[in-house]
């Protein structure tokens, strides 16, 4: 019994003696994973695609914020080729890189940074939040999965006191507000037209005719008309459901917008105005347009007109 206890004590001492080494090694791994990602960003900034490709595991994947999963190597290569001649001054400003070592050969790294670039003489920037899943083989880390989410930056000059600095709003909240803003602008416009004696129906027709002039004549219903309307509804409505679609027709369900309550406009007027705007555009695109109300939703049917 004594010797067993003695042995156990020896084992504990042995483990205690090892602890700093384990902790040190863990810290080393954390630092090296963070350095790996920092260096990856540097190569990215330099546009060094050949060295970048060496940083990926064979089966590396991109996971996009809207659920799409793509092979990392091929996607990056194709993006580089597409943007090679049009993008200049690409820069990455790192806000943070935090690595969690989940096993001796695996790290979960979260990063936040702002990337900026010039395209056709215009400067653009985006805020990126990323997660890298790294795996270690031998002495080197490789990227196994890269998830990223984009937002638009809210930047504060360094001279501004902390009490006046606020967080950037989530991009989904910005989109929601932008959608509401569009409906608010529409409500105010209808109200103004009404004041000068033009009904919501007439205003919708006039505005629709003007918008229609901006469209090219369609080369095909499926791509230009159906595809275009589906895309348009994604940016004005938080809910889009494709109920029916084929080569000559499309039926959609979108959530009905809410009228700005500070205006003298009814939901019915907003409905009529929009229906007339979109009818004019669809007409110009050689299609018919119908819209009905279904509770909190609008049901939209677009059909290709017979040739």
């Amino acid at each position, binding site marked *: 019994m004594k010797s067993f206890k003695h042995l156990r004590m020896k084992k504990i001492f042995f483990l205690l003696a090892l602890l700093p080494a384990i902790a040190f090694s863990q810290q080393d791994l954390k630092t090296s994973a963070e350095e790996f990602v920092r260096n990856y960003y540097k190569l990215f900034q330099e546009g060094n695609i050949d060295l970048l490709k060496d940083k990926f595991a064979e089966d590396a994947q991109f996971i996009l914020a809207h659920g799409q999963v793509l092979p990392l190597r091929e996607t990056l290569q194709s993006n580089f080729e597409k943007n090679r001649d049009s993008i200049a001054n690409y820069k990455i400003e790192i806000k943070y890189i935090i690595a969690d070592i989940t096993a001796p050969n695996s790290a979960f790294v979260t990063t936040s940074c702002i990337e900026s670039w010039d395209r056709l003489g215009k400067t653009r920037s985006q805020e990126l939040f990323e997660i890298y899943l790294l795996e270690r083989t031998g002495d080197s880390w490789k990227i196994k999965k890269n998830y990223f989410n984009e937002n*638009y*930056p809210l930047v504060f000059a360094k001279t501004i006191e902390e009490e006046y600095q606020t967080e950037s709003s989530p991009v*989904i909240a910005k989109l929601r507000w932008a959608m509401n803003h569009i409906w608010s602008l529409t409500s105010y416009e209808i109200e103004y037209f009404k004041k000068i004696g033009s009904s919501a129906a007439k205003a919708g027709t006039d505005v629709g005719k003007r918008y229609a002039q901006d469209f090219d004549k369609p080369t095909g219903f499926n791509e230009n008309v159906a595809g275009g309307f589906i895309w348009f509804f994604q940016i004005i409505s938080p809910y889009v459901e494709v109920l029916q679609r084929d080569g000559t027709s499309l039926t959609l369900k979108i959530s009905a917008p809410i009228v700005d309550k500070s205006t003298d406009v009814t939901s019915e007027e907003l409905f009529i105005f929009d229906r007339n705007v979109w009818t004019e555009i669809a007409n110009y695109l050689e299609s018919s347009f119908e819209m009905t109300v279904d509770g909190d939703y609008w049901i939209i049917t677009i059909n290709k007109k017979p040739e």
Partner: protein
Amino acid sequence: MKSAEGFVREYFKLFEEKKWDVIPDSYAEDGQVVGLGNKIMSLSETMKPVLERNKTEITNENIDVKWMKTEMTGSSTAIVYTHFIDKVNRSGKIRVTENVGTFLLEQKEGTWKIKRWINSQNFPVINNESVDTKYRVGNSPVSYKFATSVNLSYGFECCMIEYFKKKGISPSELGKIVGKRYASTWDKSVGYEGLISNFAGYFQFVSTYVEILERTDKTFKVKILAPIIQKSWEITRDDAVDFIQQTWFEIADNMGSDCKVTDDGQYWIVAMNKKY
């Protein structure tokens, strides 16, 4: 023992079954959540008020998992990526969101716990099952939708400016009319502070780049990416600036501030200073 994937499915089930008090048991003590604004926060502290609110507000929740991918990263850690549609009836309002969740899990005493949770949301595009595969559409990134939405709202304003210009009303006059109308809906009691905090929020959804250059209790200067005026509109860049300047001036003036918008060719610099 449950698989990591099984654990996440069970976690979602707790929401569907409204077991709000049981949900925190799924979190590691030092569990973290990366919020929608990319801020890293304590998971249990962040979820506490959310779950409390859910008790009275949520009558139904349905989580439809599209896919799940699991990476076992060690003997007791796993990362689960999942794409799901979340349909919530909150106080009678149905809200549907499309989500990509990333869960970093750790196992303690044979039980999985959430160590880090990152969720991104989008508004969904749903294809009815009867729609032929070749006609189904995928969703677009929320950032892309937002940028297009901003362009659309400026297109809308350009349409108005052009229409009234043709009727003999200048962009500046139109801005004054529109601005006075907007100003009438503002609560004057919130004063200069309310004006600036509202505009600081407003600029974030009317521009894809916002830089606060100056901010004190009496001054505010911001640089925002100006819209591109499409050539098809019969208006100039100056027309747009005149309209915006006058619209925002009317609101600011009503709230005890001046307002000056200048255009440097790519950005608009907006200065709002408190009137003495």
